[in-house]
């Protein structure tokens, strides 16, 4: 496909058209039905998103007067809702980045190291499988089962806020302790999935290579640094994208750790959850604009790295 796009001269275009025509002639009724179904399905997946997008540009009257999926007319078009949404959510975006980026990078590194220790080194497979089973089970824990202890842990046992008092002395709002807690929490709960993803990748690596290095007397650390880590690039892309999406999108932990949307450290999902509800009813245009603005980073990641994302979720 990219080849076709690159060819800009006339002959190329002509060849493409002939090819297309030949393809069309070969199409049977069954094929056409297939494509119709596929396009309808695509519509099903896109309509909620499309309708949200057009709605976010509508004025209050346009929302009532036009169909929900129709674009606003010239008179019903406004940027005002986006402006309000960005005003309300911008600080949340910053806060979300502040924990999502470090937590993503750390959990990917930790996952890679853990998976390496559980895959390449030579120790009893049955014990390895036991440790792995315990780790992998962690992927499937409903987080509700750890919430109350988590709150206890951060509020009573580990007084991070006091430990970091020198940071607050610099004039940073002490609500930001929530950001640090979120990073640690997301890394801890990210270990299982990151380990699993890297492990599926490391299992396919050539044993001979590692063994010959080991026979030459290389330590495990050296094998990891010189052989495994440089080859992990593609999997790092998958894990970073998957983890970033997960952490950015998560509401539950931000809700119990940061708790209020008025907090200076409130992440974007927390503010968005309460946006556009007021006494006068729901402002749908504002909600849609906010939803899109909050989703921009994950949408960008998805559009740029869709294949890696698909690989991450499929593992």
């Amino acid at each position, binding site marked *: 496909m990219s080849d076709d796009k690159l060819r800009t001269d006339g002959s190329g275009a002509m060849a493409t058209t002939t090819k297309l025509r030949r393809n069309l002639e070969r199409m049977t009724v069954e094929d056409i039905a297939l494509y119709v179904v596929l396009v309808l*399905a695509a519509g099903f997946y896109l309509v*909620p998103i499309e309708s949200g997008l057009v709605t976010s540009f509508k004025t209050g009257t346009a929302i009532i007067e036009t169909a*929900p999926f129709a674009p606003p007319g010239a008179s019903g078009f406004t940027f005002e809702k986006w402006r309000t949404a960005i005003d309300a959510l911008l600080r949340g975006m910053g806060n979300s980045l502040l924990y999502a980026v470090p937590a993503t990078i750390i959990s990917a590194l930790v996952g890679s190291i853990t998976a390496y220790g559980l895959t390449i080194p030579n120790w009893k497979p049955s014990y390895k499988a036991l440790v792995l089973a315990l780790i992998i089970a962690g992927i499937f824990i409903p987080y*509700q089962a750890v919430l109350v202890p988590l*709150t206890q842990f951060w509020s*009573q046992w580990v007084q991070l806020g006091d430990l970091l008092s020198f940071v607050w002395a610099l004039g940073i709002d002490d609500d930001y302790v929530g950001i640090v807690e979120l990073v640690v929490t997301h890394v801890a709960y990210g270990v299982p999935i990151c380990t699993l993803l890297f492990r599926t990748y490391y299992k396919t690596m050539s044993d001979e*290579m590692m063994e*010959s290095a080991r026979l030459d007397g290389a330590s495990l*650390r050296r094998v990891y640094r010189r052989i495994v880590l440089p080859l992990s690039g593609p999997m790092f892309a998958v894990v970073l994208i998957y983890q970033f999406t997960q952490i950015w999108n998560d509401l539950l932990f931000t809700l119990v750790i940061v708790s209020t949307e008025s907090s200076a450290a409130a992440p974007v999902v927390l503010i968005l959850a309460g946006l556009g509800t007021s006494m006068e009813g729901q402002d749908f245009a504002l909600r849609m604009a906010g939803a899109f603005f909050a989703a921009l980073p994950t949408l960008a990641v998805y559009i740029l790295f869709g294949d890696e994302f698909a690989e991450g979720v499929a593992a």
Partner: protein
Amino acid sequence: MLDFYRRLHRAISPSSGDGDEPRTDGGVVSDGAASGPGAESDRGAVERLKAAVDNRFGADFVESSIFWLPPFLLMGLFVYGAVIWNLLISLTDYEGFANAPDYSNLDFEMYTRALADSGFIDAAVNTLILLVAFTAGTLAVGLLLAILIDRGIRFENTFRTIYLLPMSLSFVVTAQFWLWIYNYNNGIANSVIGVVGLGPVSWLGNQDIVLYAVIFALMWQFSGYAMVVYLAGLRAIPDEHYEAAKVDGASTLKMYWRVIIPQLKGATISAAVVLMVFGMKAFDFLYSLVGGYRPPNGADILATKMVREAYSNSQWAYGAAIAIVLFGMALAVIGPYLVYEYRRNNL
């Protein structure tokens, strides 16, 4: 490739030969060696211990533990430690503004209270309905899409990208979209059924409908995921199986039903487990739908009830007990799955 690494390795091995080797025995040894005449026997003891451990667990056990043990402990503390702690809290009477539970008086009061609470029973039933209907529906849609996409179509990547797109969005974001779609006055859902002369329906206001409306929205978000898993499963089936079925004169429908779908058992099981876990996390969606702890009437599930009891009503111990029930449900699904994978040597 292999050769390159051998050469690379030879280039770096002089330094590894004597630089790294002693250190791999663990820092203890070199400390001992530095501390005088007693060191020799210390060293022997440590060496012997290490040898014994390595004998039992395999040659690289001790050396590799530095890689996996710290993350394992961190994750173990936050997952297993927290679940056990949660179990303990659920046995106390912890509530209100007290800083910590009183662990001296443990009983099952919170569990008997749950059984007597009709809200809890409703939430448990709703959770089961949601899990079963959501998982089955999502798998069916995903399988259908995967089969359609696998028929050698053009623009396969484009279609796949579109179908998977909702999964990259947060529950908080998709909840806003569906709130708009299910909106009574000018939502798409009501205009669609209006075409065939039905409605308008109060999707989120009607107790009997709201749960299924939520399930439908969740299916929209996750059927792309099921499709990706099934697609990988379909690709693993050798072409001969299709051809053999064709030669036997089986119709397309029969071929899929008799030959192909049975081979997707593994994909079905792993997708179903993951989907059930997503289903239990529907909390984010329900919370964002209303912007608060109280989901629409008729759509309360254990996940939302647990968080509401604990964080809104400060009934910490009661919330913890509900969480344990939810955890038990998850365990009933995951336990057999992990054993199955372990038996198949898939871990």
